[in-house]
Structures are given as C-alpha cells and as structure tokens.
C-alpha cells in the first residue's frame, strides 16, 4: 500500500537511510528543467507589466521578479529532489532557514515573503517526514486513510462539539465582546454556513454538482425585495414566499436537466445561474437593472415590535417592549439570531432526512443511479425534491441577505459566489456537516481576518481549492457514518479502503 521509496529499502522508521550516491547531475538537470518552465511562465506575464500612461498603454520590465522566481523554483525543486536521495537533513535545515529569512528579514514584496515562508515550510515538512518515516511522502491511499481516521474522529466528536459550538454561538451576542464588527462577521459566516448546508443537500447527498446555486439565493433575495417594493409585504410574510418561489424555480430549472450526466449537469446549472443574473441586469424596469434595489425594509421583531427608536404607527418599539435602553445593536443581534436559527433549521433537516427514505434514496442515487432505478426509485422525483429543497433553503438565505443588506444588485449573485459556496461544500468534505463549518471558517473567515491581504484573497482561494483537491480529493473531513446500525457499533466497521 505504500509507495516504494528510493531512500529506505528497510521500512523501519527512523532507521538511518542507507545512503545511495546522490545523483547530482540528474537532480540538477531536473531542477534546471523546472526553472526553465518557470522562466517560460514568468517572462511574458511577470516580467513584463502593462502600465496605463496618459499617452496610452506602455510596458515595464521587471527582470528581478523573473530571476527571483526562477531561482526559487530551482532551489525548491532541487531540495525536493535531494530529500528523496538521503539528504533530508541538510534540506530540512536549509528550508527552515529560508522560511526564517522570509519571516524575519525585510522583503521587497509580501509575495516573496509568502513564497519563502510557505515554500520553505512545505519543503521542511517533507524533509521532516522523510527523516521520521523513511519515506519522502505518503502515498495517496495512505494519506487518505489517515485523513479518513481524522475525519471519523471529528465526526464522532461532533456529538460533543456541536452543543458547545451552538451554545457558544447563542451566547456570543450577549457577551461584552460582541461589537458591531464581530456580529457582522458572525452573520456573514452563518450565511455561508447556511448556504453550504443547503447546497450540501444537492451536492453532498444527492451527488448533483450544482454550479448555479447562487441563482436560488438571488431568487430569494429578489423575491423579498420586489414583494416588499411593489406590494409592501413584510419580511415575515415574504420569507416563506421567497422559499416557495425559489423552490418553484428549482423545480422549473431542474426538471429538464436532471437526467443529464454529471458535468453536463454542472455546466447547465452554471448556464441557468448566468441566465438569471443576466435577466436581473437587463430587465431594469422591473428589477432595477445593474443599479439593483435599495431601501429594502428591515425585519421587525416578528411583526410585533420594531427596532427603530421611533417605530411607525401601530408598532411597538423593541427596546420599550422589553424595557431596554435603545441601541442600534439590537437589530444586528436579532439578525444574528435569525440567521443562526435558519442555518440550524437546514442542519436539523439534513440530519433527519438522512435517516428517512428520501435522504437514503438521494445517497443511493449518488452511489449508483441504475441500481436505484432497479429498486423502484423514481430518479427524477427524488432529484427534483433535492433540488427544490436546497433551492428553498437558498431562497430563505437570499431573503435574509436582502433584508440584512437593505440593498441588492446582480453584482452579489455572480458565478464566483456559486463557486465559493461549492468550494465550501467540497473542501469541507462532501456530505459532512461539520466540514461545511470548518470550510466556511477557512474560506470566509480567514480572509476576513487578514483584510490587509484582501488583494490576494481570491488568488489564495483558487490556489486553496486546487491544493486541497490534490491533497485530499474527497474533501477535508469527508467521512460517512451509516444512518442505521444493526449491531449498534459493536462490530467494528471497516473503513474505506482497508479491505479493498
């Protein structure tokens, strides 16, 4: 199961690797090839930059950056090559040194610092692994098995983590820590968690790759905004309506395409997402076009009280109702609880539905459609149900988004939004509820925490998607527990891959 290693014929860990002669010419040639590719990649785009001048477009050369990248690629590749040839220790030291230099010394650009620290760190890690296990890297299967064990542990720990996390989330606004900014971030995270859990129903359970989930988010948001704008309906009336409308649009869009194969389906949903966005942009008489809709009413306290200092006729003021000092924060706290509740609804739904025939049929369809049909499962209906339910949750989230922002425009519903939500689901580990939370913290939380690097946010996001897929194609915390046990877990269940 393990990859043959060039260094250690004896698998004993920590054995001093029998040292074959280091193949210097080979390693150097390999590193030089990599450096040459780096040269070709960087010369046109990194080395030459277009600059806008008053006289028109002109160009500027940056040979230093090209040289830096080539040198770094050369050294990195050489280091990786040498690790495998018994020189792990020196490489480890050098890589750590590079990382330290990157951290400590002043650098001309942040990128260089990042490359030094990250690159040095990764190489050092590899070298360290080689030193301890005698292998330069884990094989895919081995890595997958280890991660699966971790994921299983996390999954089982969720029983205890979840109540704590929920209690924490509930208590957070009541602590003195809770200022406007923290609550805003909390709301943002919860919105994405809710969207992630919603999309998880389609992607994780039913196995349908939906690249246009944001369309339903948009339908929900615009439903509320337009209903409020044209008919003056309140948020509490519109919330279920938005859900219903989104679910209907899910059925409408889903019906014709559900029988398409995996990635065709993905592309069509992407097309639908774009169609809805283009309609929002172009039908400006109705939707306000690119300018969007502003002045979307804020929610009241369940139609009983309002969060303003002086509420309109016939409405109590929230702070008076509860005998509190007026604070603009009340509304934010209320919103926070609202989205927390909505997100938990999705979560509870998913947990329960997995144990119902509907949820089991979804998972069966994901595993094998043909076998499902042979058992009398109506594929179209089941998939439509998944699509509609996920769309409905998307619609709820959308109308929450509209009321929270008070302003919406098609800008908020681009493909990249869908990609982010999908990334949350897939990176977290398909079907894993806790995975969605972890991935949201990574994908949304981290960039919020490092706002000064905002420019690099999407760059890192894209790179992160690639790296996590390479590292663990099934997603970080992918792990599935059976929904029903005969022996109550007494007979140890064999993990994926162990008996194959």
């Amino acid at each position, binding site marked *: 199961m393990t990859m043959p290693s060039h260094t250690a014929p004896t698998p004993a860990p920590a054995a001093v690797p029998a040292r074959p002669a280091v193949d210097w010419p080979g390693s150097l040639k390999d590193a030089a090839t990599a450096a040459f*590719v780096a040269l*070709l*990649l960087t*010369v*046109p*785009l*990194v080395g*030459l*930059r*277009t*600059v*806008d001048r008053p006289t*028109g*477009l*002109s*160009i500027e050369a940056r040979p230093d950056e090209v040289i830096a990248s080539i040198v770094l690629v050369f050294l990195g590749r050489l280091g990786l090559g040498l690790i495998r040839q018994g020189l792990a220790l020196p490489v480890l030291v050098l890589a750590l040194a590079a990382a330290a230099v990157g951290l400590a010394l002043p650098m001309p650009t942040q990128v260089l610092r990042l490359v030094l620290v990250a690159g040095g760190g990764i190489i050092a890690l590899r070298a360290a692994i080689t030193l301890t296990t005698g292998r330069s890297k884990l094989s895919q299967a081995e890595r997958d098995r280890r991660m699966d064990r971790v994921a299983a542990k996390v999954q089982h720990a969720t029983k205890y983590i979840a109540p704590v996390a929920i209690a924490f989330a509930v208590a957070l606004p009541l602590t003195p820590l809770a200022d406007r900014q923290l609550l805003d971030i909390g709301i943002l995270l919860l919105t994405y968690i809710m969207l992630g859990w919603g999309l998880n129903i389609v992607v994780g359970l039913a196995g349908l*790759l939906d690249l246009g989930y944001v369309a339903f988010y948009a339908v929900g948001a615009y439903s509320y905004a337009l209903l409020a704008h044209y008919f003056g309906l309140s948020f509490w009336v519109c919330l279920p309506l938005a859900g219903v409308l989104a679910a209907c649009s899910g059925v409408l869009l889903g019906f*014709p*395409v559900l029988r*398409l*194969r*995996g*990635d*065709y389906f*993905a*592309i*069509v949903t*992407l*097309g*639908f997402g*774009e*169609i809805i966005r*283009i*309609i929002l*942009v*172009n039908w400006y008489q109705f939707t306000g076009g690119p300018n969007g809709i502003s002045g979307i009413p804020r929610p009241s306290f369940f139609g009983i009280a309002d969060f303003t200092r002086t509420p309109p006729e016939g409405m109590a003021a929230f702070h008076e109702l509860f005998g509190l000092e007026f604070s603009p924060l009340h509304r934010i706290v209320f919103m926070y609880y609202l989205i927390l509740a909505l997100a938990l609804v999705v979560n509870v739904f998913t947990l329960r539905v997995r144990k119902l025939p509907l949820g089991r049929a979804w998972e069966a369809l994901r595993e094998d459609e*043909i076998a499902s049909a042979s058992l009398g499962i109506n594929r179209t209906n089941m998939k439509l149900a998944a699509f509609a339910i996920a769309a409905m949750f998307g619609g709820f989230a959308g109308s929450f988004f509209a009321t929270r922002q008070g302003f919406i425009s098609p800008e908020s519903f681009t*493909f*990249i939004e869908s*990609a982010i939500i*999908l*990334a949350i689901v*897939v990176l977290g580990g*398909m079907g894993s509820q806790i995975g969605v939370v972890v991935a949201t913290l990574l994908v949304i939380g981290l960039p919020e925490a490092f706002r000064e690097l905002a*420019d*690099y946010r*999407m*760059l890192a*996001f*894209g*790179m*992160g*998607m*690639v790296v996590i*897929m*390479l590292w663990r*194609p*099934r997603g970080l915390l992918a792990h599935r527990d059976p929904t029903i046990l005969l022996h109550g877990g007494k007979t140890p269940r064999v993990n994926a891959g162990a008996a194959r």
Partner: protein
Amino acid sequence: MDYFIQQLINGLSLGAIYGLIAIGYTMVYGIIGMINFAHGEIYMIGAFVALITFLAMGALGITWVPLALVVMLAASMLFTSVYGWAVERIAYRPLRSSPRLAPLISAIGMSIFLQNYMQLLQGARSKPLQPILPGNLTLMDGAVSVSYVRLATILITLVLMVGFTMLISRTSLGRAQRACEQDKKMAGLLGVNVDRIISLTFVMGAALAAVAGMMVLLIYGVIDFYIGFLAGVKSFTAAVLGGVGSLPGAMLGGVVIGLIEAFWSGYVGSEWKDVATFTLLVLVLIFRPTGLLGRPEIEKV
C-alpha cells in the same frame, strides 16, 4: 441585405474564435473525460501575451506590422502552451484516478487562480490597444465593408483547421492521440506514452486558444482579465453543440454560436445575446446531448 452580410462576417469571425477555443475543450474531454474549466483562462492568457508581445516590440522599435503579427502569434502560442501544460501537470494529472468531481473542482480553482493572478500582475483595468490592422475591404460598391482583421481571423482559422486536421489524422502523434481517446489503458499497454499524449493535448488546445485570444485582441482592441469566463462557457457550449469529442463539431458549434450571437445582436439587441447562447446550451443538452456531430452514447447496464 448588406447589413445581413456584415453580420454574417461578424458571426463567422466570432464563431471562428469560439471554435478555436472549443477544440481545446473537446480534445480534453475526449481524452480524459473532464471539463477543463480553466481553458477560458488559457485563452485570456493568450490574449494578454499577444498584447504584451506587441507592446514589447513597440518598445524595442519594431513597428513593421507583418513582422509584429507573426511574432505576436508565435509568442502567444508558445507561452500560452506552457501555461496549458503547467495547468495539466499541476492541477489535473495527480487527480486522474480520483472521484469525478475532484478534477472539476480543481479546474474551477485553477480558473479562479489564473484570473486573479492576471489581475494582480497586469491590473484590473481593461487594456485598450490601437488598431494594428486597420482598414476595410469594401464589397458591392461600398455597401458592405469588412474589416481586414475579421477576414484574417477567418482565413487563419481555416488554415489552422486544415493543418490541425492533418496533424490528427496523418501523423503518428495524432494516431496516438486518437488511440488514447478510445482506450487509454490499451494504448498504454501498446507502448503509447499516455501522459505525454495528454500533455500534448493540453498544449495543442492552449496553442489554439492563444490564437483565439490574439484574434479577439486584434478585432476588439480591448481585453481584460475577466474575458475568459464568458468566452469559456460559450466555447464549451460550442463544443457540446457540435458533439463533445468531435473536432469538426467543435468548429461547427463555434460558428453556429458566433452566428446566433451576431444576428441576435444585430437584429434583436445585444443585451440578451448571452441569454440566447445559454438557452441554446440548455436546449441542446436536453434534446440532443450528443450534439450535432457526436456519436450517441448508450447507457450500458
């Protein structure tokens, strides 16, 4: 009538561009069965390399247009192919045997990465370029005027298509490529270096996309880091329309989409042209998922 011919030429040149990009999608799908979502970005890189090459030559004082065009074409194809190669090597090859979604997600990540990479390096503003190949060919006593660039686009595409078809059908490389499309494992057993063939497929696709990028730069005179997304989706539509896996199909699909777009813009209005394309994509997939020239696919139980 003259307006019609004008739109026809516009549609054909646009279609040639979509077709060139679509070939990359179709070949990659044919050989490894994945949608190379980052292919639109490759085309965008092609356009940028062409622009930068032109500017660099200007800075070096080379202004003779024919030379400039040839160098642009060569540089764009060369450097862009390296990007195509690198994308496959880094983001897709390790995922060959993974669950089906993994390479697609990786490709989406790659696409987002490349877009932002370009934005960071070259700026978010769109890049205007003065016409390199100005002038029109007037026909029918001046009733129809066709710009030289558009004509050149159609011509170059035709030449490339002929050459490319020869490459695929006549050379041993093309034979190996087709063999891998049929059955990678068997081809491997028979001594075809499958990895190399797959790399070459990406390189060829990227080179053609680079040509498309350069053409767009010449025709429209303005590019930005975001052009890859829409063009990518539309070209994918073209590939599906023509029948995924079929090279002439990709070209045909591209032309059909180009024509629809041109006539839609010309007679209906340009705001809704993208809806027209996407609707077409949906309709084709629903009613004829094998496309115009594709082979039917049977679910084997």
